């Protein structure tokens, strides 16, 4: 899923303070799981903003609502008449949602209330960790299922750098060295031969935007 964290409150306040009618608009899928942008968080953020407005003596009407997804028009189209009544939509969806809503809303700005971060796993409730960077050309079958693009601080493809430190990464003792993990996993799978092969320089063109694709089968059916 896509993860994100709410922006610092002062930054959000500075975005909204000059508007008169603001909708804090939540998204109940990915960002709700990371407690940053669901309907509940939108509600809390709206009331915090109302309190701040009262403190500062600024008159702003601040409401909140949410839909299941901001990344597909069919989820937000039904409520757009209401959404268009505001002069600012503060979206707590991920950046994808903010972009798509902005494209569809007309002459009303859509601002981001969260910083979108990565595709994350939820190893334990409330914990999020990046395991894939969406590089467009997966090599997990060569690396024991451990992604060196997302999990090695330098995205190295041929083994650990000299900074590898008793299982930790040179960048921080809190980061595990992906290449030590890959080595251990390949050893366990009896496939260390894979690590001995030189991996050629990556085709980064597949990892760079703007990217889009169409599902071929669906295209055929449409025809």
């Amino acid at each position: 899923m896509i993860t994100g964290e709410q922006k610092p409150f002062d930054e959000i306040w500075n975005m909204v303070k000059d508007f008169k009618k603001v909708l804090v608009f939540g998204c109940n899928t990915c960002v709700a799981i990371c407690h940053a942008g669901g309907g509940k968080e939108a509600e809390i953020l709206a009331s915090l903003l109302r309190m701040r407005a009262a403190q500062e003596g600024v008159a702003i009407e601040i409401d909140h609502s949410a839909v299941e997804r901001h990344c597909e028009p069919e989820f937000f189209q039904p409520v757009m008449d209401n959404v268009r009544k505001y002069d600012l939509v503060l979206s707590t969806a991920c950046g994808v949602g903010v972009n798509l809503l902005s494209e569809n809303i007309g002459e009303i700005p859509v601002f981001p209330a969260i910083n979108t971060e990565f595709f994350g796993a939820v190893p334990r409730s409330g914990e999020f960790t990046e395991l894939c960077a969406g590089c467009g050309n997966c090599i997990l079958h060569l690396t024991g299922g451990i992604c060196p693009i997302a999990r090695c601080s330098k995205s190295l493809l041929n083994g650990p750098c000299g900074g590898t430190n008793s299982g930790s990464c040179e960048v921080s003792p809190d980061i595990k060295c992906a290449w030590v993990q890959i080595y251990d996993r390949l050893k366990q799978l009896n496939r260390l031969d894979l690590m001995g092969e030189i991996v050629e320089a990556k085709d980064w063109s597949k990892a760079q935007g703007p990217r889009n694709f169409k599902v071929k089968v669906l295209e055929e059916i449409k025809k």
Partner: protein
Amino acid sequence: MSFREILESGKFAVTAEIGPPKGTDIKEMYHHIEVLKGKIDVANVTDNQSAVMRISSLAVSKIVLDNGMEPVLQMTCRDRNRIGLQADLLGASVLGIHNVLCLTGDHVNAGDHKQAKSVYDVESVQLLKIVEGMNNGKDMSGNEMKGATNFYAGAVVTPEAVPLEPQLVKFEKKVKAGAKFFQTQAIYDMEKFKSFMQYAKKFPVKMLAGIVVLKSAGMANFMNKNVPGITVPQELIEELKAAGKEKALETGINIAARHIKQLKDEKICDGVHIMAIGMEDKVPMIMERAGLL
């Protein structure tokens, strides 16, 4: 004799480092070049060492060359993509710089521009392959170039990395990718290094042992704790302690000289790489005490 000829002739080689400064005042750097010239065989020119921004290694390599010393151009993959790296390799070649040390490079997190975007479009093994390709007249996309390079390519290895096995897998890939010489991370335990060399001798490469002078017991303890892949044995720390504060540096210099002498006399490896880190003035003294001058 060129660096390649020295190593291939079997002569014990001595390399040291010139660290480009931050800023345009290069008086001190000139002084270091003067001190080392005629003593060491070649000078590595570091590339934004520790991710701290300084004069480019290519520019300083040319200065070293113009001042009568052969440089080893250090190249990291942190700051340039494959186009930038190849362009600089061609640039080095036409400037008469023919030794290159291929490194991945410390993470920007270690340096003084922590918010920089790291590149790592390619890494050390792939850079070695790029160099090999350019030596054969082709860029890394396979395009024919007008005129090939003639680089003597090297790489680094950490003989005391923990864990060691994954590091050795990478070392063997570097050999396969075309590395002809290696300069190691600092080593202090001669017995451990000997057993590493027993393994490394199987490969057709020249090995230069990394030497970093211990300035004090405190420095040794600090490195043990904070520098990955460096282990200073307890007996050396005791030796530094016993010498007392005033004689610690003197003792550190003697330890370095003793190690170099042993590496040479027992023919353990093909040379040494002295990383003076601010003590370039002391390199000739170390060499004298090691019986090299």
